[in-house]
């Protein structure tokens, strides 16, 4: 099944909606806290915990607002992983020397700048070990793994030279069908 075929099936099913919670008590708290060296404080907000001093970034496009190094950036409504924006890549590009997975899972996220829902493809970047920075896990409308294209637990480094996961991107595929 081609990527486009898969996506058209996926968009029939996915119901990911608007996601703007930015300081959720995520499962990711464990690693987030460990990275920040504050494991004694449970349930730290994700973005703050996992990378306290990453310099802020911007897409440079006011139609694509927010800071792609933070977990509350609008495209990340269904992401689970290290943000490539903190790892040498960007919100839609893999870090140097990694390989972008050709297949992946998708979410539908609302862009606060235009109010439109976009289909976002969370392509993993593969071939180097865990980046370890800016872990972000948001589970709005995440479905169990028996609906793989709507589940964020899977390592999508499949069909790449190496199956080792480095970080995750959030690439715009297009507008969501209504």
């Amino acid at each position, binding site marked *: 099944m081609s990527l486009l075929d898969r996506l058209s099936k996926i968009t029939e*099913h996915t*119901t990911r*909606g608007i*996601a703007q*919670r930015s300081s*959720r*008590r*995520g*499962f990711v*708290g*464990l*690693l987030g*806290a*460990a*990275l920040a060296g504050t*494991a*004694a404080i*449970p*349930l730290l907000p994700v973005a703050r915990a996992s990378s306290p001093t990453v310099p802020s970034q911007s897409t440079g496009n006011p139609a694509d607002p927010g800071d792609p190094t933070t977990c509350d950036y609008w495209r990340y409504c269904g992401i*689970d992983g290290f943000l490539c924006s903190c790892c040498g890549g960007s919100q839609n590009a893999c870090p140097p020397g990694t390989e972008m997975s050709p*297949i992946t899972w998708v979410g539908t996220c609302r862009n606060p700048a235009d109010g439109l829902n976009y289909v976002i493809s969370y392509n993993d970047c593969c*071939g*180097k*070990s*865990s980046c*370890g920075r800016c*872990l972000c*896990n*948001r*589970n*709005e*409308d*995440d*479905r*169990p*793994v*028996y*609906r*793989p294209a709507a589940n964020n*637990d*899977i*390592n999508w*480094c*499949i*069909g790449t*030279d*190496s*199956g*080792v*996961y480095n970080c995750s991107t959030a690439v715009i595929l297009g507008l969501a069908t209504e």
Partner: protein
Amino acid sequence: MAMQVNGFFNRVATIPTVPTKHPRRVATGLVAIILAISASITVAELKPEPIPNVKSIATPYPATYAVVQDFAFSGLIDSKFSLVDTHSQRFMGMMSAGQFATIDFSVPRQKFYVGETVHSRGARGTREDLITVYDFENLGIVAEIELPPKRMNVVTKKSSTAITDDDKFLLVFNMNPATSVTVIDLDSEQVVGEIQTPGCTLLYPDNARGFFTLCGNGGLVHITLDDQGNESNRWSSETFNDIDNDPLSEKAERIGDTWYLITYKGEVQPIHVDGKHPRIGERWWLANKAERDNNWRPAAWHGKATHQNGQLWVAMTPNGYNGSHKDPASHVWQYDVATQKRTNTTELKTPGVSIAVSQGTADDPPRLLVVNIEAALDIYEAQTGQYMHSITALGDTPYMVHAID
């Protein structure tokens, strides 16, 4: 050590600077003589010790052993399983593993089966998927079974693999992204077959030599194996799982011939596996309407545990919302599945990531095991919820605990 002199023993042995029978330190005077005598009697010169020297573990294991999986999110290719004694708090040993590892064990065979994906040069090179077999006594590798390199790589889920109820076959779920199951004969420790499961994912054994798998259409498929591990029968259920509105979590536990699945919002779905086909049981709610309205929902990475006497434990959060289903759990609620009544509630000392319950013995009552958000294992009395103690320093991101009994 033949005798002790008037209680001198303890003191002598722990004072760092006591004179001894060392030839260049000849003691004189009464006190020194007494000390020297006591030392010569109670403190023997230490003998050279053997090299090499490697420990083994007494078997059978007591009911208090557990395995904690360090998923190692910060370095996925170097994960590990730690065997700990939840009674003595001792670390008994470990098994290294590659990425996205799984573990199964067979008490009759006294073996662990670790599923792992490795690459020949660390983060690159040739991918190999393996079931690596360890014996209970030595935690030593006794076999390495090479798999088709497509085992599902997913954040650790218990139902990625299973041993059939007759202890004959190990089943490994594949996704590349086509879905299938690799069948391994545990007598020969060889791969004997592969079963296609299009549209369906994960493995839940029945009470014989079969399993069901959950499907993206909201149904399940049940597959029966023959003596050679080939598919002998396949059956599809009606749709019973409203995936869009309130899906059944894939994290499930079992009591006897019944699997207990639970929806994101907290409705229990028993699935009976005692017959030719699974039977979809009657649902019941973990929380009453008022509690649900107050956002009590199941939580944690793997937040379900069972005892074969008919008890179910479920990790809960009072802060439920769309997307909270993997959040850490602040509470554990306990049920009698026969009456569907809640029998106890426990507020966790530290929020939990995953839970398990040991079956226990008369001497070692069941324990509730909780890997927490501080990367430690907290141990509670399962019936009362009384906190007992903890085991710390279990790795980077310990996401799963298994009672080994």
